């Protein structure tokens, strides 16, 4: 079973603010899900497996060229932003 501190650490990594009740609930739920997914530890796996065998696909390349005019989509995209100013997204200061 994972502890409350584990959940809090995962929440930080996941950028999720959780209340104490949510932490307690997730601790139980995540532990129960982990108990279920741990069943795969029982499967014998060949030592060498090709990671991509199941998808049977290859990398697709395209020319690295511009696909639209600069600024073509700026207004439409910025209209979706919670806060913007002079054509930029506005966010909290990250440098002191």
């Amino acid at each position, binding site marked *: 079973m994972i502890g409350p501190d584990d959940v809090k650490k995962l929440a930080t990594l*996941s950028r999720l603010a959780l209340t104490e009740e949510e932490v307690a609930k997730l601790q139980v739920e*995540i532990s129960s899900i982990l108990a279920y*997914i741990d069943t*795969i530890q*029982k499967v014998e796996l060949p030592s060498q497996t090709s990671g991509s065998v*199941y998808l*049977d696909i290859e990398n697709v390349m395209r020319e690295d060229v511009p696909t639209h005019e600069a600024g073509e989509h700026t207004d439409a995209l910025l209209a979706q932003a919670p806060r913007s100013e002079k054509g930029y997204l506005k966010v909290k200061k990250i440098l002191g």
Partner: protein
Amino acid sequence: MAELTDLGVRDLVAGYQAKKFSAVDVAEAHVKKIEKENGALNAYLEVFSDAVDSAKIADARLASEGNTQNPLLGVPVALKDNILIKGKIASAASKILANHTATYDATVVKKLREKGAVFLGRTNMDEFAMGSSTEHSAYGPARNPYDISRVPGGSSGGSAAAVAGKLATVALGSETCGSIRQPSSLCGLVGLKPTYGAVSRSGLIAMGSSLDQIGSFGRSVYDVETVFNATKGHDPLDGTTLPDYAEKQAKNKKIGVPWAFVKDAQPDVQEAFAKELKELSAKGYEIVDIEFPSAPFGLAAYYIVMPAEVSTNLARLDGMRYGYHAEGKDLFEEYAKSRAEGFGAETRRRIILGSYVLTSGYYDAYYRKATALRGVLAEDLKKAFDTVSYIATPTTPGPAFKLGEKSDPVSMYLEDIFAAPANLTGIPAISVPKATVMRDDVSLPVGIQFMSPKYTEASLFSIAKDVVGEGA
């Protein structure tokens, strides 16, 4: 006389040709029925105000070019709320994207629009396609038209409820693991999960990118086949689309049945399944016992791979560029509050789980192991498909369950036990409605599933037609 909302694609095509009714008549009949019945089903989150206008355009095209080459001209389609239409809200049934307006069309939308399909509205779903009941929608659960105290399945439950309730002729959904087949099973519909890469995902809000695929719901095999043929194809905007989708035919009429795996279904579902197989053998199919030893572990592997991809894909939803934003004292707090307030409980659970399995130290035990297991599943399938053309199982362990019945996350996850192998290995699979079972004196549908090798959708349609007795 049949109502316009009862008709499938083939009847609409014939009716338009005979000028018995117009596309506007058909669209209006659907809109009217939605107004009357959507309150109980909550299948649609929004009915598009321009639905009838698109039908007018379709009528003009029907008059000028006809529909002999184009069966979808004037056909009403419902779209799952994670598929983008430029200028319309696409929220993935999440609060975090409540006001998100799409800035471009999904490739499937472009294709269907060119063919003159009429988009009726966007349908309810589990938030970000995470769930098997639509109870994880931020906008309330959708209901099953067979019994509104039961769920329609999920995550594409709104699309399934819309087609089963005759609030749309056909609908698009998406699958990461069972999200089309499971609601098809619970709502008595045909539902296809195509070969990975057959249909472009450009404009589909991503969940698990190595698994996601767009597919369709219909009340007949022909309807699903028509939508698949109209939407498939290579797309430069989706690097995972197959450059050379070349249709392949099943090599024989052998159906493999992994009986040890089928035991995970409820007893009467197993009986109904066995009866369906018997009917198929009377129609010239040969039923063969096969081993599929890795199959029961597929779902556990899925619950490693998917959350890992979810935590990565959903990292972009940070409250800064678009979507819900919460104020905080610094940037980190704004991220954490925006995401905590914007995402629902199941989404948060899967993000946390994804962070866990990707944490350094656990990566080998989980993600690497799950990836290797996908390889083992593919090897097992390859071995089976050396002998048989199809693998059959029940689509779901049981029929539609009551709202609130599966509040424990793992019990909900087990709904997709039979779905996982196809998603993890990229093969196509179809759910076909035939059997019913009784629960609380209500007769409820439950589907039979067929899986087949990549590129053999045509053979899946052909066996599905044999199951339901539908002509070619």
